[in-house]
């Protein structure tokens, strides 16, 4: 592998050794990341008794394909669809609102800036279970109990502090010269945001989309408390169907987990290209 940055011969050899070690470690981490998945997928093709008798690390013997049709019969696509809807709406709202809020905190000087920034950090510290009961009462009072749309408010609100915090960090790395150039061109604070800052924050926004998308997709506690009607439940709650009072059907639970993770994996493969070097190329013209 020819590294553009290796100059002399000695450096090329050093670089080759370094890359060699790097690849070794990389493969090691690859294994670590992959093994639990392999485990999960394999065990979703077994029957519960076989898994217990032969142990979880045994290859499927015999292969049992009935777990997946069964969970489909139990309505997993309904859960799926509702999750997609709620997460999509919450995510879009969250991205918009947090970028709005990060802008003044990162690029403007005003009196309450530090106070609000400190406040945002404080909000990140709130342990979520503590808010369950007050928010539940509020949701109930709004008549939204057992309604999946009741999740949007908490999902967006809880994502905000961390997102604003991260995005502020990203926006702060945009060089002043870019802004100054825009001001000279006649931008005011508002158009500055829409024309300049927002487009340059794409990598930050992608990070946020991934971080929050995943956590909203997997969110359990609020969904569990607010949604008791099976027709409104989101995907993480589907697991509950297979857990009884004294035991659970592991392979079926694993098949639900595989199906839940798949769309995220596919989406990531498609969109991971956005995190590419060179987003700032051409941003600062001499």
């Amino acid at each position, binding site marked *: 592998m020819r590294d553009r940055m290796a100059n002399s011969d000695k450096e090329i050899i050093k670089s080759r050794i370094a890359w060699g070690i790097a690849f070794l470690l990389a493969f090691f981490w690859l294994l670590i990341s992959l093994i639990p998945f392999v485990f999960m997928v394999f065990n979703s093709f077994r029957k519960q008794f076989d898994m217990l008798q032969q142990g979880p690390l045994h290859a499927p013997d015999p292969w049992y394909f009935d777990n997946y049709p069964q969970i489909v019969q139990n309505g997993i696509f309904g859960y799926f669809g509702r999750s997609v809807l709620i997460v999509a709406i919450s995510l879009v709202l969250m991205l918009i609102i947090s970028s709005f809020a990060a802008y003044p905190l990162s690029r403007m000087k005003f009196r309450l800036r530090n106070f609000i920034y400190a406040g945002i950090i404080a909000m990140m510290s709130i342990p979520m279970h503590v808010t369950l009961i007050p928010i539940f009462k509020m949701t109930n009072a709004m008549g939204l109990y057992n309604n999946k749309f009741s999740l949007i408010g908490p999902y967006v*609100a809880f994502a905000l502090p961390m997102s604003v915090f991260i995005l502020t960090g990203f926006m702060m790395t945009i060089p002043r010269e870019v802004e100054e150039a825009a001001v000279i061109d006649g931008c005011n604070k508002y158009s500055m945001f829409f024309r300049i800052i927002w487009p340059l924050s794409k990598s930050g926004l992608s990070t946020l989309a*991934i971080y929050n998308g995943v956590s909203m997709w997997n969110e359990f*506690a609020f969904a569990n408390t607010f949604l008791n009607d099976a027709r409104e439940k989101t995907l993480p709650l589907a697991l509950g169907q297979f857990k009884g009072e004294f035991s659970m059907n592991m392979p079926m639970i694993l098949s639900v987990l595989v199906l839940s993770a798949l769309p995220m994996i596919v989406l990531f493969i498609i969109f991971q290209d956005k995190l590419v070097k060179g987003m700032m190329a051409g941003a600062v013209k001499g």
Partner: protein
Amino acid sequence: MNKPNQLARVESRNTAVAATVFLFPAIALIIVYMIYPIIDTFLTSQYSWNGISTDRVFVGMENWKTLIHDQKFWSAFGHNVIVMIFSILLQIPIGMLLATFLDAGGRKLNIFKIIWFLPYLMSSVAIAFLFTYILATNGGLFSTLATLINGKRTAVDLLGKSPQALYAVIGVMAWQFTPFYMVYFIAGYSNIPTTLYEAAVIDGANRRQYLFKVAIPMLGPIFKTACTMSMIGSLKYFDMIWNMTQGGPAGGTELMATYMYKLSFQQWKMGYGSAVAAGMFILITAIALLFQKIFVVKEDF
């Protein structure tokens, strides 16, 4: 002449207005969904209450006094601190290494990026579930490996004894969250203008010089945010530990959040549980803000 002063004042008023407009939606949501519950928590912490009944007994600062002397709470806090230290030591450097590897290797290494990211996509509940099997004393990965190495049936008990349990959990947390930091640093690297990279190449810098003199310093603020996030996340942590050990064995992996949950929802002590939650909130905020103050990084360049 008053003109420059006037301009300055108009300018700063415009800024204030713009700031308000942009900040408004976020602050409104936060007030409704976060500030109101926090105030409610502080209020509840002054009562002795079982959580469900309509009578609550006002005890003032009694719960807080108990909290300060509560050994279980401080032991849980200790566990949180251990988690925090190790999480920062594990997740951020490894995440950074992975990101650096990918950044240096370019597009060809995409398959690595994808596979490395997989652990982050699973829910905490799922991970807890999976790893209870993988780390199981009977038939789990480590016991099987140990048996193979030793030749006779060996059991490696990771989750059933302290202090191994806490470190095993820290390991699983690292498995789960490192990919996020990897992505985070990739985004950070992609923020570095290619012009700087090109300039470095032209100047004849080798990779090591580029990394240490250009790339890493540029990542300064990103680094600080990453540490803050990891810190706060570790101090607040609940989901996976609850599903994996419920704070066991015998409190070996008890964190502040699991302690609070048990008090509020299982032991009929929601008043005291609220004090624990409020105490947690104060501690975490203090630590995070302290960190922000101590590690001041140049923001503009």
